């Protein structure tokens, strides 16, 4: 599979005429799993929406493999990038398998649709939910079905906004392994995460946002320091590293 390199140059974004992102410059590469972290309201979701082409930047620009994003048609963009928003509420009580199949819309009606849908459901341990109407699923079950929708296509760029938020610990781990394997296979994966130890363990790169600005980027060891995290989140904390796994202990409010 051919990977996709995404670069943001001096990216700025406004919502209702208020700036929510400014001067973001960063690069997302194939084979890399990147976590975007930061406090509530830091601009994580906005950055992901801009990357997915859902929101148009108000300043700077985004390039995909050197091609300016604004010159890519929506249909072409949909084949390059799969995106799962933070809160996605299905309007109708579709069958779970039908919801997953919507992820194949950018590719028309591929012949092996059913096989792909069941393979995607298997990736998130949800094959037994295939026939269930999505309104009868629990929050975590629905989230897994939605993640299968994200994974069912062939897009080289995967973007998910807090994919693990509603999941139990077993499914959190399983999902992070899945994203890790997708990155190892050459995809460019960008996740917004609140779980810092999970980000430290699975991700190659961390982007730390605060009030719409990129405060730090680098490997988990570079970014997850008590000084940096403590400062941005307004807490005192400790990181104890063991074999690339961070034991993160928030201690108190700053």
């Amino acid at each position: 599979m051919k990977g996709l390199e995404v670069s943001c140059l001096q990216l700025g974004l406004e919502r209702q005429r208020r700036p929510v992102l400014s001067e973001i410059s960063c690069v997302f590469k194939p084979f890399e799993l990147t976590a975007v972290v930061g406090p509530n309201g830091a601009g994580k979701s906005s950055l992901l929406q801009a990357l997915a082409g859902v929101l148009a930047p108000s300043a700077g620009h985004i390039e995909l493999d050197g091609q300016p994003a604004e010159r890519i048609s929506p249909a072409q963009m949909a084949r390059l990038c799969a995106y799962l928003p933070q809160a996605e509420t299905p309007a109708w009580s579709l069958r779970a398998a039908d919801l997953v199949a919507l992820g194949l819309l950018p590719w028309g009606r591929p012949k092996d649709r059913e096989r792909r849908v069941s393979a995607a459901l298997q990736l998130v341990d949800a094959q037994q939910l295939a026939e269930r109407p999505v309104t009868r699923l629990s929050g975590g079950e629905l989230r897994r079905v939605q993640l299968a929708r994200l994974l069912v296509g062939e897009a080289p760029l995967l973007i998910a906004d807090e994919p693990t938020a509603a999941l139990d610990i077993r499914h959190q781990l399983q999902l992070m392994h899945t994203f890790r394997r997708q990155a190892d296979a050459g995809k460019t994966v960008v996740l917004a995460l609140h779980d810092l130890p999970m980000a430290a363990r699975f991700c190659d790169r961390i982007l730390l946002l605060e009030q719409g600005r990129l405060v730090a980027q680098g490997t988990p060891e570079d970014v997850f320091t008590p000084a940096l995290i403590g400062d941005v989140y307004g807490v005192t904390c400790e990181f104890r590293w063991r074999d690339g796994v961070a034991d993160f202990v928030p201690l108190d409010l700053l």
Partner: protein
Amino acid sequence: MSSSDKLALTLLLLALPLALVAALVSGPVSIDLGAALTQGWRSESSDAVILWQLRLPRALLAILVGAALGMGGAAMQGMLRNPLAEPALLGVSSGAALAAILLLYYGSALQASWGSAWQSGWLLPALAIAGAFSAVGCVWLLAGRGAGAGQLVLAGVAINAFLSALMALALNYAPSLFAMQEIVFWLLGSLANRGWDQLLLALPFVLLGAILLFSARNYLRALSLGEDSAASLGYRGRRYPLSILLGIAAAVGAAVAVAGTIGFIGLVVPHLMRPLVGQDPGRLLWTSALAGALLLLLADILVVNFVGAQELRIGAVTAFIGAPFFFWLIVSARRGQQL
């Protein structure tokens, strides 16, 4: 789709020609259907005239109008992601109705100068279609650039309210009791005394609407996930909502123009069909068109067979079917079932 759903859809498809035959033999005069059919549409015999000039165009118009309303309702609910939306919500029907009322209102004055157009019966529907498009245009302008479903609904409700106020004003100052009666009856909706002229006028608009709506069916599917997800699946920009709005204006505007405002079909039919198509908003379009056609044809058979001093208006019949359906919706929601 389960096999029982397929069976239900096949039965619907088979029921339509049966209902058509029933409509052709229904009426105050009993005719020899076989003879009338073989005599052909040029025949001067009374049976043939009743069949070819009265019953057949009326039944086909019921099918066309019902299909437009059912399809328009399915598209509107899909676009607004709301099962309570109906095609009238965005002012399409009231735009058409206001234009028609104004014509009925100033009709006598116009009759003199537009005599021939008035006689042929296409002037009113043509103006009503223009009214429907104008209403949707106003909604589109008021909602503004990049409007989501929420803003569209708000703009639609506002335009709708304004048009209703104008209609109330027109009724208030109706020049004569006769004009007022004509307006009120027109608002109740009717398929009586319609012929090939109305059918041929509405047909291209309903077909245009159907093409616009069906071409946006994958947008409606993607939209079941929400606007951001639909955008990420490639359905971004104003093109798709615009094609839905124009499709509804064309199909429903034309339906209202030839038959008056007929409520509840657009609201009820998508609900009835949704379980049969696995809630897929794409397939819901054609199944709702089919069921809307069948329902309105059956309602019109009821109207034709109703014996009374006054003609029973079809809008009243569909409301009588529609309102109890709402009771049923509320009761089943109380039992914890999905709307």
